[in-house]
């Protein structure tokens, strides 16, 4: 038994332990015991993932009663790429488990909640370890059921939870069915259900195209791309925060993993339209996601939409890579794929912190509406610091992981091939979209941090907030440290990504050539930076930081000198905008913050506005009260899903009329069937 196999089995065993602890432990100890076991499972996932990423191999297989192959087994056999994602899932899971020790009270800390969390994480960590179709689908569905239970965990508290859970369950099942069909096509075309055999089989032609489309839709649904993203803005807000963190930071990434797995390993070297398909999904998602995020005031909904945006960015990098590969530009292909993986890791890091931070806010204030938060930097300094760092990451500002990742992505784009007509027409548009996305992301996260933590408390909950307990602050601070560390030393991520792609055989025209090119295209530059020798660019955030410190130092010195002579004076009112400064109604809210943007994108967002004017009784010319409501629906949901659901329901009602209870009608069904069979057979 190799070390890797031990690691895989250890994850299973620890998951079992966690479930046992969740079910059997007494209530006060449950979060500690179950969370502890889950934490260990996450760590074992990290270790196993690291081993796999390092190139260790191992196979764990289980016999099945009915399987797809001749020997009916399901196998876990992670490769390097899988190792990276397992590491990611394990790390996010471990941080979330740590957080859950402090957070999981109430429904999320119930027996079911704790057990489902362990199952969810187990599925999550094993999806990238799967070595064949059945194992993949099985772990995928474990992930689905675990997360569905968790999304529904707080069903007793809010009514929206049920509809969120339903949307989630249905969309998850949609994803599963597409994957099932896609893998079925693949299995049939490749005469095997094992990934290794499929990769060796070099499937091509129509079947490959069909499989690619089916799988891409399936994975896109999980990844939350427009227009199959609708579950995301519903499920993320309603799930307990540590669950939303894992869902957003790790589970959604399994969709990314699936796409990368498909285009690099199972179906490498696809035609150019594949890249265009992915691009066509990715760019609108990025833009739509961030646009919705920038105008919403529900913090967790904002974060959910931001996930759609980030996955859009990640997949646009994958698409660039595919396009470059199909036109033979292996250096750009490699860099773009590395950028995709770096973005993935970076998003995982900062989104974990953001969701956990949002959970902390929820915990402390019982509010997740930004309009009712505010001033929390004073009462929750540690959470504020961590959240702020993560916001910087989300806005891709230096020196965070997000910045380095987007830099690599931009480099890939700038050097994207302009030899063919279509790509050269698309690339500037792609760059513009990404740039607008980045700009809106900046606005969004300035809003998220500024409105939530600065100014004055806008609700009683925010006024009486207090810092959350230790496991929770520890979890967010660890996450924030990771965001910074990966930002200062992006070479780590870049090297890991390049290594992961080595086994995958990277996108591309012909396996071996591009494999080396991805490795050659990426290297650690001086220090911990990232260098792209393939396209001649390098970045060293550490040096940048030093330079920044060097130029800021004199400023600080001068400030210090001035401060010694003229200390700051506390006053009740500085300028105050008319003296009503102390009212919590005065600071700008998230809604008002986003108002200019809503106006700019009025056509795209189509908000529903409701203006009510109450006149004074004495005269219609005197206004007593004016109330203004603005509501922003998800337009895709409104114009695509709602009519479809309504149509289905109508069809269901019609069908029920058919089954009207009349004996004669039922006999008629049989009679017609008999006649049809008789005639058909005689024919």
């Amino acid at each position: 038994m190799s070390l890797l196999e031990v690691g895989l089995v250890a994850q299973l065993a620890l998951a079992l332990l966690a479930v046992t602890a969740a079910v059997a432990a007494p209530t006060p100890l449950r979060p500690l015991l179950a969370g502890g076991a889950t934490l260990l499972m996450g760590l074992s996932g990290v270790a196993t993932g690291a081993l796999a990423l390092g190139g260790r191999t191992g196979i764990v297989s289980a016999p099945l009663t009915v399987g797809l192959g001749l020997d009916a087994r399901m196998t876990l056999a992670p490769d390097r790429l899988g190792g990276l994602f397992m590491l990611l899932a394990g790390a996010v899971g471990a941080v979330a488990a740590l957080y859950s020790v402090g957070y999981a009270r109430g429904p999320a800390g119930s027996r079911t909640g704790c057990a489902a969390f362990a199952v969810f994480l187990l599925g999550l960590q094993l999806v990238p370890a799967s070595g064949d179709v059945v194992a993949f689908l099985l772990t995928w569905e474990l992930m689905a059921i675990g997360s569905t239970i968790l999304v529904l965990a707080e069903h007793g508290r809010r009514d929206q939870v049920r509809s969120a859970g339903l949307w989630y369950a249905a969309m998850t099942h949609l994803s599963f069915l597409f994957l099932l069909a896609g893998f079925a096509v693949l299995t049939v075309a490749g005469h095997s259900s094992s990934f290794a055999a499929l990769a060796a089989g070099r499937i091509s032609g129509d079947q490959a195209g069909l499989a690619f489309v089916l799988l891409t839709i399936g994975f896109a649904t999980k990844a939350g791309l427009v227009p199959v993203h609708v579950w995301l803005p519903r499920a993320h807000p309603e799930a307990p925060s540590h669950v939303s963190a894992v869902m957003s930071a790790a589970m959604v990434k399994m969709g990314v993993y699936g796409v990368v797995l498909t285009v690099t390993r199972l179906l490498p070297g696809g035609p150019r339209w594949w890249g265009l398909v992915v691009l066509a999904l990715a760019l609108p998602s990025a833009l739509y996601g961030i646009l919705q995020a920038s105008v919403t005031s529900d913090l967790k909904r904002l974060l959910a939409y931001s996930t759609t945006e980030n996955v859009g960015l990640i997949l646009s990098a994958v698409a660039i890579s595919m396009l470059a590969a199909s036109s033979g530009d292996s250096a750009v292909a490699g860099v773009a794929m590395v950028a995709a993986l770096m973005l993935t890791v970076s998003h995982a890091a900062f989104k974990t912190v953001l969701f956990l931070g949002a959970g902390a806010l929820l915990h402390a204030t019982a509010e997740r509406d930004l309009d009712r938060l505010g001033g929390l930097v004073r009462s929750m300094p540690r959470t504020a610091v961590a959240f702020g760092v993560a916001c910087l990451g989300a806005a891709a500002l230096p020196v965070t992981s997000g910045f380095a990742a987007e830099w690599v992505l931009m480099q890939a784009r700038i050097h994207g091939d302009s030899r063919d007509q279509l790509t050269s027409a698309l690339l500037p548009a792609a760059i513009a979209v990404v740039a607008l996305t980045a700009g809106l992301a900046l606005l969004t996260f300035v809003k998220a941090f500024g409105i939530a933590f600065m100014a004055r408390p806008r609700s009683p909950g925010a006024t009486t907030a207090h810092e959350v307990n230790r496991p929770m602050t520890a979890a967010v601070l660890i996450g924030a440290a990771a965001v910074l560390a990966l930002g200062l030393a992006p070479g780590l991520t870049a090297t890991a990504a390049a290594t992961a792609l080595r086994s995958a055989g990277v996108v591309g025209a012909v396996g071996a050539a591009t494999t080396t090119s991805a490795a050659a295209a990426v290297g650690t530059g001086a220090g911990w930076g990232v260098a792209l020798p393939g396209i001649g660019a390098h970045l060293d955030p550490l040096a940048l930081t030093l330079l920044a410190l060097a130029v800021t130092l004199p400023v600080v010195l001068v400030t210090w000198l001035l401060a010694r002579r003229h200390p700051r004076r506390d006053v009740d009112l500085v300028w105050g905008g008319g003296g009503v400064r102390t009212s919590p109604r005065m600071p700008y809210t998230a809604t008002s913050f986003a108002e200019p943007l809503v106006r700019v994108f009025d056509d795209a967002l189509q908000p529903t506005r409701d203006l009510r004017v109450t006149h004074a009784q004495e005269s219609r010319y005197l206004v007593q009260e004016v109330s203004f409501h603005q509501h922003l629906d998800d337009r895709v949901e409104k114009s695509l899903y709602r009519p479809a659901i309504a149509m289905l329901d109508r069809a269901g009602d019609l069908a029920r009329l058919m089954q009207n209870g009349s004996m004669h009608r039922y006999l008629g069904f049989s009679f017609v069937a008999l006649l049809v069979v008789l005639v058909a057979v005689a024919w």
Partner: protein
Amino acid sequence: MSATVTTMLLVAVQCGLLLALAPVRVGLMRQVRARLEGRAGAGVLQPWRDLAKLARKEPLRAPGVRFGGALPVLLMGASLLLVALLPLLQTATLVAVPDDLFVVVSVLLLGTVAIALLGLDSGTAFGGMGASRHMTVAALVEPTILVAVYALSIPVGTSNLSAIVSARLDHPATVVAPVSLLALVALFIVVIAETGRLPVDNPSTHLELTMIHEAMILESSGRDLGWVEYASWLRLGALLALVANLAAPWGVVQHLHVLAVLIAMVALVLKVAVLGAAIASGEVFLAKLRLFRVPELLAGSFVLAFLAVTASYLTV
């Protein structure tokens, strides 16, 4: 003297030059405006005097404000970093920190974020309003910046600004190519928008409903206000210098020589002065746009940049 040390020295010189001249440039612009409007004006050194005054005053802090002191320093640091990164005097850059376009834009945005947070931190309605508008403009500006510089970088094949400037020096014809002109115009509009000049924002107004920049710093006082103002001037100066260098790259040091550096400094001062004066005289004839028509302006500049990219494909 090794190349690195020389480069660092030059960077220091560049920073010092802009630090010294940024307030003068503001003074110059105000003076030009005043004269054109038939006023005497306060003289070109007035901004320096203002700064000195603000440094001596004690800053005030209202309850609830947490970052009133830190954010201005951060803003100042970001602006200085921006200056240090841009290829204003020379095309050789620090090896470890290339003046990559994306890095430059990020640093610029870091400053933008710092000032927006300052506005939000104050907790007043005006602060939030200013921050909101400021961020909206910034978000809409970003595509134009990136696409414009992308257009400029296509012929060169790199996103390093110094490489772009250097290439334009080597091939002066590219400066007047349609790509370049379109991109420069787009970039210029963007700089105007980002730094809060007319017609996007009026730097000299305190009319509540229209202001952007001033709304955010209403609550700042003393040295805090001083830093914020200084940083803003610095940013505008740096960006104007960048545009000037892209439009007219002559004078920038390619081969290190003391005389060349001196020439470069003089050239830079001249370019910025001319550009600043031009803007100031232009502003006399402009009124501020309605806030919600600003996106139209930005969309226009974006289209220009986009056309520049397309043009670059045509010419290649």
